[in-house]
Structures are given as structure tokens and as C-alpha cells.
């Protein structure tokens, strides 16, 4: 029905050249992932009218992209999803002559992102982060004592610990390709392994923990951590920091911490890209270039608490954020981060099936 409506609107636009050249831009980004006035500033600067929609999972974005005619001009897939979507022919090549702010980007991080998108031909880094553990400092200490292993996956992957945290609530991301590798990493296996036996071992560990897990969700934990409805969440770094902020604002005495487990964690990049069927490619390039502006990037990082890949913005990033090892990890921690593996269709199915088994016990 929506699609029908979209087609009707599109048809109307095609027959009306005035409308088609009107300066509009449709952006589809992650929820809670931009400073409050960034869009307003962009509109004021360029006169382009922005429609801004949000999602909370790569899967939802991917389904829209694969179906085609999404109507969006700029989207923000995560690196490993980006790679598969490029293979499916979803994204347009960037016209780098329209992106002068590329000079601001950190060459080292862009090189890391090029593992997914050779030559950075289709996308630039918006933010990057890690998948680690967010926790309610007091609630965890009350149940596990001062020696709670908050710096290790054993906090939740050791059944003895998980059992003690069950009553105050543990949440996992509903993302098979992040959770199972994390469990493999804890078991000392290569988190990027695609061997069925390794994946099964990781899933078996999660199955053992499952009775202690309250829910699997990829955005709910932000407010639940902040309100004390759960006390430990496997989550994305910046989201946990947002929970920490909200908890501090609520002044109910809840303190939230984030740790990158010492065994290692997933490092991911969220990438700005333009769908190949975008109708406003010029405006889309203008927006991506705007987002790479040093000041704008700094404002976004200061607001969403995610690390950016913009070298020029660093002097304007708040000291507190720069010094936080959970956001900008130290060199030793950085060495233990791994990048997501892009799986074959067969491995994908194995992982999703294992994940369903973890979640439902069936």
C-alpha cells in the first residue's frame, strides 16, 4: 500500500518537472544518531528541505534497499551490511569531486573501512564504535561485589555471574552476527571464524545463558538501562553512553558504565551512502559533504557520544569524550578489536538458525 502510494507520488513527480527539481532530501538514519540542530543547520545553509526518518536495525534498512525504490537519498548502513548491499548493486558510486571535505577524514580509519568498500568508492564513515557491555554500576556491584568482572565478557557469559544478574535484568542485542562472534571470542575462538563447529560452540554458550536473559532487542535497552529496568546490556557504545546521560538527567541515582571487554570486541563503521535509485543525488552529496564538516562532525560526536573518523573535528570534540577509553579506545584495546565478517548465504542461514535456537530454545 505504501509502495503503491510512493509509486503514485513518484509518477506525479515525474509528470511535474517543477516538483522533481524541487530541493528536497530524504534521509534514513539510525535512531538517536544525530545532534538536534544538524538538520536545521543544513536546511538553513542549502535551502534543501529534509525529510528525516529513523530505523533501529540494519535488517530493516537492508530489506528496504533490496526491495528498491525506497525513496531515500542518504542511508547509513553498517560496514558489513554495506559490503553485501554493494554486491547486490544497491549503492551509487560517490562523486568525490562533490565531497571536498573528504580531506578531513582520518586516512587510517578510511583504510579500515575500505576493507568493506574497496577504495571507499560508495560510502564515507559517519561514526564508528564497538559492541561491548553497558551496566548499572550499583546494581551489578550489589549482586557480584566489588570484584565484579565488568571488564570481561565473563560478566554475562559465565553462567554463575549471569544467574546472579538475572533478577535485575540482562539484555542482548537482537543481532546474531554480533552476539555469536562475541561468545566465540569469550571462548577463545576466532570471532571471525565461519566454521560451523565454531559458530555452534558460540551459540551453545549463549543457549546456556539464555534463561538469564530478559530480552533480545537492539534499542529498547537505552531507556531501560537509564530507568533501571535492566542492569546489564550488550550494546553499542554510543547507545550506552546515551543511557548514561539520560540516567544522569533523571537524577534517580542510577549510574551507567560501558566497558570494552578485555577479550576483545567488535569494531564497526556506520557509513553514509547514496542508494543507486536516489532522485536527488546532488542534494545527497551536499549532505554527505556537510556531515564531514569538521564543526558539524564535532557537534554530532559531542551529542551522540560516538567516535567519528574526522581528524579535523578532533580539536572541537569535548575533552571528556576524547579521554573516554570506551569511545576512543587506547592502542592496546584497539589491537584486540575485530571487524565484522561478511558471511556467505549458507553461513548466514546457519547463524540465523542458531540465533533463533538461542532465543526460543527451538
Amino acid at each position, binding site marked *: 500500500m505504501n509502495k503503491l502510494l510512493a509509486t503514485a507520488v513518484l509518477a506525479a513527480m515525474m509528470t511535474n518537472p517543477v516538483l522533481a527539481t524541487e530541493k528536497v532530501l530524504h534521509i534514513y538514519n539510525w535512531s538517536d544518531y544525530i545532534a538536534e540542530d544538524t538538520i536545521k543547520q543544513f536546511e538553513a545553509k542549502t535551502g534543501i528541505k529534509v525529510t528525516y526518518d529513523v530505523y533501529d*536495525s540494519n*535488517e*530493516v534498512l*537492508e*530489506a528496504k*534497499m*533490496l*526491495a*528498491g525504490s525506497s525513496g531515500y537519498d542518504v542511508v547509513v548502513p553498517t560496514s558489513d551490511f554495506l559490503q*553485501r548491499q554493494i*554486491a*547486490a*548493486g*544497491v549503492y551509487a558510486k560517490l562523486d568525490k569531486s562533490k565531497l571536498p571535505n573528504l580531506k578531513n577524514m582520518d586516512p587510517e580509519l578510511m583504510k579500515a573501512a575500505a576493507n568493506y568498500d574497496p577504495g571507499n568508492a560508495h560510502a564515507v564513515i559517519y561514526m564508528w564504535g564497538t559492541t561491548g557491555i553497558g551496566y548499572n554500576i550499583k546494581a551489578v556491584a550489589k549482586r557480584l561485589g566489588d570484584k565484579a568482572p565488568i571488564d570481561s565478557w565473563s560478566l554475562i557469559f559465565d553462567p554463575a555471574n549471569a544467574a546472579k544478574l538475572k*533478577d535485575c*535484568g540482562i539484555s542482548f542485542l537482537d543481532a*546474531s552476527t554480533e552476539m555469536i562472534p562475541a561468545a566465540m571470542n569469550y571462548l577463545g575462538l576466532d570471532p571471525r571464524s565461519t566454521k560451523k563447529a565454531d559458530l555452534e560452540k558460540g551459540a551453545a554458550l549463549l543457549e546456556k545463558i*539464555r534463561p538469564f*536473559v*530478559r*530480552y*533480545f532487542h537492539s534499542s529498547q535497552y537505552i531507556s531501560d538501562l537509564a*530507568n*533501571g*529496568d*535492566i542492569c546489564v546490556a550488550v550494546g553499542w557504545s554510543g547507545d550506552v553512553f546515551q543511557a548514561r546521560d539520560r540516567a544522569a538527567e533523571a537524577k534517580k541515582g542510577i549510574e551507567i558504565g560501558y566497558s570494552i571487554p578485555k577479550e576483545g570486541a567488535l569494531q564497526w563503521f556506520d557509513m553514509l551512502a547514496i542508494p543507486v535509485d536516489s532522485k536527488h543525488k546532488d542534494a545527497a552529496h551536499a549532505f554527505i559533504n556537510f556531515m564531514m564538516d569538521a564543526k558539524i562532525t564535532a557537534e554530532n560526536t559531542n551529542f551522540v557520544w560516538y567516535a567519528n573518523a574526522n581528524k579535523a573535528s578532533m580539536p572541537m570534540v569535548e575533552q571528556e569524550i576524547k579521554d573516554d577509553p570506551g569511545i576512543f579506545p587506547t592502542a592496546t584495546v584497539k589491537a584486540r578489536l575485530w571487524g565484522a565478517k561478511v558471511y556467505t*548465504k549458507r553461513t*548466514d*542461514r546457519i547463524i*540465523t*538458525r542458531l*540465533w*533463533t*535456537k538461542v*532465543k*526460543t*530454545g*527451538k
Partner: protein
Amino acid sequence: MSFSANKATFGTLIKRTLVKRIRFRGRSLVIGIPLWWLIVFFLIPFVVVAKISFSEAIIARPPYSSLLEWKEGGFLLLKLHFSNYLYLLEDSLYISAYWSSIKVAFFSTLIALLVAYPMAYYIARSTERRRNILLMLIILPFWTSFLLRVYAWIGILKTHGIINNILMSLGITSEPLVMMQTNFAVYVGIVYTYLPFMILPLYTNLVKLDNSLLEASADLGANPLTTFFKITLPLSVPGIIAGSMLVFIPVVGEFVIPALLGGPDTLMIGKVLWDEFFSNRDWPVASAVAIVMLVLLVIPVMLLRNAQNASRAAST
């Protein structure tokens, strides 16, 4: 002479066929609108889904293969992948998901019926003025977004939600009860959401109940309970069936309520469909799951209708 007579009959003939045609057109127009509606919004999507269910998942846009393929030498090759359907049988996940969806739908329908019957009965027995107010109250929640109402239940049921806050401040419990992310929450959400669909058909049935039958029953010495079970209940069976179908069928495929209120072990076919479609990017298997669900729902409904028609034919 004969020519003019011929002309006259010819003229009336044209007139007659014209009238007939207009009448015919009018009728086909009236029948045609719902027919076209069904073709455009039901049959075509169904055929598209059925088509995808026989294709193969690939990394492309759209992410499935084409059924038809031109081969050299002018062959048009039709490839149907039945493997997607066979796969549903191979893995016990799908069967248990269908089964648990039907179970959830059955018990939700039963609970909704038990709650709705007295309500519908009371409304039907009220004075006309009060009846309209009560009906209004039943319909009123529809004016708020369904999603918003489900979110409201999250606020009521969650660990630091309304119920737990009340229980704890009254000292009835010291630790909050875990109600969210449980099957209990799913049943609460479903019964709450679908209750009006049960009440309204029951009400329209019960309000037509002939009072003289009840009086006759009382005159013959039956107590109210016997009257209810011997007269009211049997006469309200069509209402019960209509209401139950309106609740049961959508609940089997329900996705939003279990996704928002349910826990990880709430296995329903809607969620499995989501996983196939989004996590596996396997549109063909997702389509096969949907087709099987449709078949599972349509066949019992058709059997039920046949049974109803047969009983109606027998009673007349």
C-alpha cells in the same frame, strides 16, 4: 409495409438490448467493484508472493531469482524451486512456530470470548440510551493508534511500571514482578486489542434475541441458568463463530504484540517470517512461510463455512 414493420421490431429490439445492456452494466459495476478490489489487493499480491516462494534467494536487487529464463535456441525455461517448501518440513522450527501461533490464537480467542460474552450480553440487555453509550465506550479506543495502546501496556506492565509501583508501595510485594517480556503480557495485549472484535458481533446477535422465548422458557419452569444454556447460548452461536473468527485469524499472524510485549521464547509465525525476511534475507522462504500460513488459515475457515451452510440447509 413489411419493411416498416420490420423496422419497428428492429427498433424495439435495439431498445431492449440497450436497456438490458445498461442493466447488465449496472449490475456488473456493483459486483465489479468488490471483485476488482479483491483482484488488485488480494489476488495479485498473493500471486506475487506465491511466485517469489518458488524462486531462489540471491544477492541482488530484488534478492530472488527470476522464474523464467530465456535459453539459447528460443527455449523459455520455467524454474520452480520447491525446495523452499521442503525446507519448512526439514526444520522443526516452522512446524512448532505454526503450532504455537495457533495455540496462542486459540487461547486468546477463548479468553476473549469468556470476557466478551457477559459484556455483550449486558450491553444487549441495557436500555437503548445506555446501550449507545456503552457501545461508544467499546469503540472509543480505536480512535487512538493501536501501537500507542500497546506501548501503554508496556508502561503498565514493566518492572518499574504502574502495577509494580502500586504493589510495592502498598507493600504487597517487595521485589517487582516480572510481567513484561512474558507470554502473560502477550495474552494481555492480544485479548485487550481484539476484545472489541469479539464484543461487537456477539452484541449484534444478542440484541436480536426474542424476549418472548425467554418468557416462554420461564413460564415453563426453567430457571435463568437453564434458559441461558438452552435458549440464549444456542441462539448466539452465529455471533460466537463470527467473533471467534475475527479474533482467531488475525491473531495467528500477529507480529506487533508478541514483538513488543513478548519475551525471547514467544515463538510465533509472524516473528519467524520477520527473521526469514530480514535476518536471512531469504524472501523465497519467507514467502513460502506466508503461503503455508494462508493455506492453514483458509482451509479451516472454508470447512467451517461449509459446515455452517450445511446446518443452515438442514434447519430449513
